[in-house]
């Protein structure tokens, strides 16, 4: 079902002053795999996400993309290498239209001298944005509407659609179903499945355990900065996941390969 390892971190650590946020965490992500990353508040999820997305540099450990060791100086570098990250509640500029958001940072310009001066091919981007979003299963209203006029669920769908449309290797989704109603969350999970079908490696971070159990192939549990469990989703049910998360069930670490 899943392909070769595309993204891997080995033994990464991150300290903020004397606080150890991440303590020797290792994980592998395969092509076409949805990896759930769960943990209680303060378990180190956000820190791991920031290391994976290039926002923070780890104090120790190595990062490999497609088997090649990489260090990210900025999120931009990770982005250009094909690693897209969607942070919770922050992905879009509300005053810009759907298509402007989809293409932000990668605009298409008109041909010729005006293109060199940065003049934009608005119609083309509106058309393409619509197609890109539809391809990943998102039915958004007209792409020339400002994002502020969309509902919360539509916004999130656009943000995820944008990330999935652009991601070439890996997509990291930080709490994408937060604050969403059941139907809207269902749409988001549907988009995640589309990303998986596209052969992307997906890292799905969520507090909503039923969503994790529904959409992931494998679950990695973080506790106090350490990875305490890494196992196929089929080995979990809701109770067991909560037990591992909170530490009431002690685990022997399982390699997820």
């Amino acid at each position, binding site marked *: 079902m899943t392909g070769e390892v595309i993204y891997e971190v080995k033994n990464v650590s991150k300290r903020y002053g004397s606080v150890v946020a991440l303590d020797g965490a290792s994980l592998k992500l395969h092509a076409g795999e949805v990896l759930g990353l769960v943990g209680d508040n303060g378990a180190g999820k956000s820190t791991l996400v920031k290391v994976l997305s290039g926002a923070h540099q780890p104090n120790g450990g190595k990062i490999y993309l497609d088997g090649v060791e990489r260090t990210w100086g900025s*999120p*931009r570098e990770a*982005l*250009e290498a094909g690693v897209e*990250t969607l*942070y919770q509640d*922050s*992905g*879009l*500029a*509300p*005053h*810009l239209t759907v298509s*402007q*958001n989809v293409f*932000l*940072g*990668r*605009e298409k*310009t008109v041909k010729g001298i005006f293109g060199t*001066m*940065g*003049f*934009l091919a*608005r119609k083309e981007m509106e058309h393409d944005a619509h197609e890109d979003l*539809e391809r990943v299963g998102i*039915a958004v*209203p*007209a792409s020339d509407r400002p994002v502020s*006029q969309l*509902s919360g669920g*539509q916004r999130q769908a656009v943000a995820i659609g944008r990330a999935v449309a652009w991601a070439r290797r890996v997509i990291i989704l930080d709490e994408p179903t937060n604050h969403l109603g059941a139907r809207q969350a269902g749409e988001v999970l549907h988009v995640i499945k589309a990303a998986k079908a596209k052969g992307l490696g997906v890292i799905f971070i969520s507090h909503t355990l039923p969503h994790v159990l529904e959409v992931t192939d494998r679950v990695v549990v973080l506790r106090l900065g350490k990875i305490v469990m890494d196992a196929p989703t089929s080995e979990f049910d809701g109770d067991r996941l909560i037990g591992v998360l909170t530490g009431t069930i002690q685990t022997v670490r399982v390699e997820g390969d």
Partner: protein
Amino acid sequence: MTNSNQTTARKPGVPAEQKPVPLALTARISTLASNQSTILIGVMVLLVVVFSVLEPKFFSALTASNILTDWGSVVLIAVGQTFVVISGGIDLSVGAVIGLSGVVSAWTMANVLKVDQTVSGSDASGPLLIGTLVSVGVGLLVGLTNAFLINKLRIVPFIATLSTMGAALGLSVIISSGQPIGSANNFDLIAAMDPKVNPLSWALIVVIVVVTIAGLFLHKARFGLYTYAIGSNTFAARGAGINVERHLTLVYALSGALAGLAGMYVYLRLGAGSPSSGTGRELDAIAAVVIGGASLMGGIGRIWGTVLGALILFTVQSGLIMVGVAPDWKKVVVAILIAAAVAAQTLQSKNGRK
């Protein structure tokens, strides 16, 4: 929620039998009615009618020319301010920059280029061109200083530009010893600025061209898109790979440079560089931007709105004087206009959210 009205909603099972045309038409009419520029044009027409009824002499080419000539200096800094405000900042230094750039430019022309009353006609073109470059350069320098304070020292734009405003005012008084510099009144080009001689002076045409180009870059090009994106959600802009600091540097540099150009414009009007020539103009610029529909929270604003906002501002000022209202009332009326514009905006966005 208005989602159900969307003609583009794509639900596979629902046949598209509703005709979207009448809906689109009413939607278009209601958009037009609530459109900021429609409202502004309406206000503008109303003002002209009211003032013309009260004082028939108001409705004349000379009045229009006077208003436009006044408008020229402020619309330049208001356009720069539009970029800054859309990016989520504010630039209080632009008025002081008008004074400083005018003084430095006049000083350069008088002391370095040795221009005096004997220079006239086409002999003046060269010095004036150099003077313009100096003036724009001074503005650019202040703009870059603002950007440095904001990006590197992390000072909020209000305070950063307040301090450069003070510095620019002080420097212009020091350089000029508090007196206007320049005795260039013989320049044909300056004479041509007189609204009585020339209703649409060449300097005004330059202003209109500059404003148009700025508008195209704001609304049609990447530069404008990034300005909106940063003002709308800096975090998202950064996440999309935009170099926010670099872009803000360009925005404040643009605002400064336009203020420098305005400094030269005012020099041409007065025939001298005076340290106080731009005093309070930054508030006119902010007023024009706000009346034009921009939000000081960032992310919202249009060049066309600013252009009309500035025009309304000067129409009111000149109209009040012509109908015999004491000039002291001018500021009160402008204050009311600003409050009304902001109130209208707030109401509009509340309605939009319903």
